[in-house]
């Protein structure tokens, strides 16, 4: 985890533009009617930042829609509609950040249970999930010497 934080800190991209970032943008957090989203839910992680962060989070392997629309296809369509190209290195950074962010969320849940701030047993073993997230982080890291 420390290595991941160091890498992220040393490779922070400069945002092409700053916008509202939902912070938990994914299936399950919006309502839709027909082919239009008409409500977004769960805004507790909202912040100002790079909109690429939301794209990366939406495409986490745990819940992403890649089975229906690949990330490449989504990015192409997003660029067409927004007029804002998505830098691939920036996207990779935010995908890496997403793995660490979800690890922290899981650890926080586990800590809440250990500290008796919640009795929800679904949070008790959340820490066991982060190994696969951090493995994903390592798998996506660029090789050293190629923008490491």
């Amino acid at each position, binding site marked *: 985890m*420390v*290595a991941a934080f*160091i890498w992220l800190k*040393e490779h922070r991209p400069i945002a092409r533009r700053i916008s509202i970032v939902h912070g938990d943008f994914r299936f399950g957090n919006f309502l839709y009617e027909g082919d239009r989203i008409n409500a977004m839910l769960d805004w507790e992680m909202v912040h100002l930042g790079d909109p690429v962060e939301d794209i990366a989070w939406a495409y986490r392997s745990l819940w992403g829609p890649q089975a229906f629309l690949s990330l490449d296809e989504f990015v192409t369509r997003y660029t067409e509609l927004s007029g804002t190209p998505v830098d691939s290195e920036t996207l990779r950074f935010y995908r890496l950040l997403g793995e660490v962010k979800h690890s922290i969320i899981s650890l926080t849940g586990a800590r809440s249970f250990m500290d008796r701030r919640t*009795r*929800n*047993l*679904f949070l*008790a*073993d959340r820490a*066991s999930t982060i*190994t*696969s997230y*951090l*493995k994903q982080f*390592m798998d996506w*890291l660029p090789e*050293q*010497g190629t923008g*490491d």
Partner: protein
Amino acid sequence: MTKPSIGDLLNGVAASLRESVLPEIPTGPTRRQIQAAISIIRRVSLVWDKTGPYLYADNKDIEEILLQVSAILDRAEANGSGAGLEPLRQRLHAALDQRGATGVEYPSPAVLGARNVELQGLLVDVQGALHAPTNPEATDRPESAERLLSAERIEILAMLRALFRRMLERELQVTAPPTARK
């Protein structure tokens, strides 16, 4: 086998709860808590018997890499490029001199776990030292001497990255059922 292992015992408890207790509990918060508890007991049953060997292998791997890091730092110290890393070098030597000094022939998972936490703390220290900013106020030596020579730094970082991959893979082999792994 003359008696069930802890893992077998926990697995049996989980199966019994799932088959004979859960069906009697109506849908609702209590049932969800029982389902979560069964899931945890089941997971622990799969991990329990492997914990000792896993920690033993993990500690051995980390110690081996830290020994190599220590040798690189010794080399850097000898050629004058390891300024500022002396405290880390001493910590590494002190910790690595303790290898195998548990006082018992077959250390328990608790002892191995404590050693694992100690070793992972050293990995944090190594990374902190490698990424420490140079001191802009130091004027008595060139900047390159304030930080480990880049070639040595890159060598250590590559070793650490490979180690982290092995540690995660090792943990996944113990904690994740084969069907859940990619």
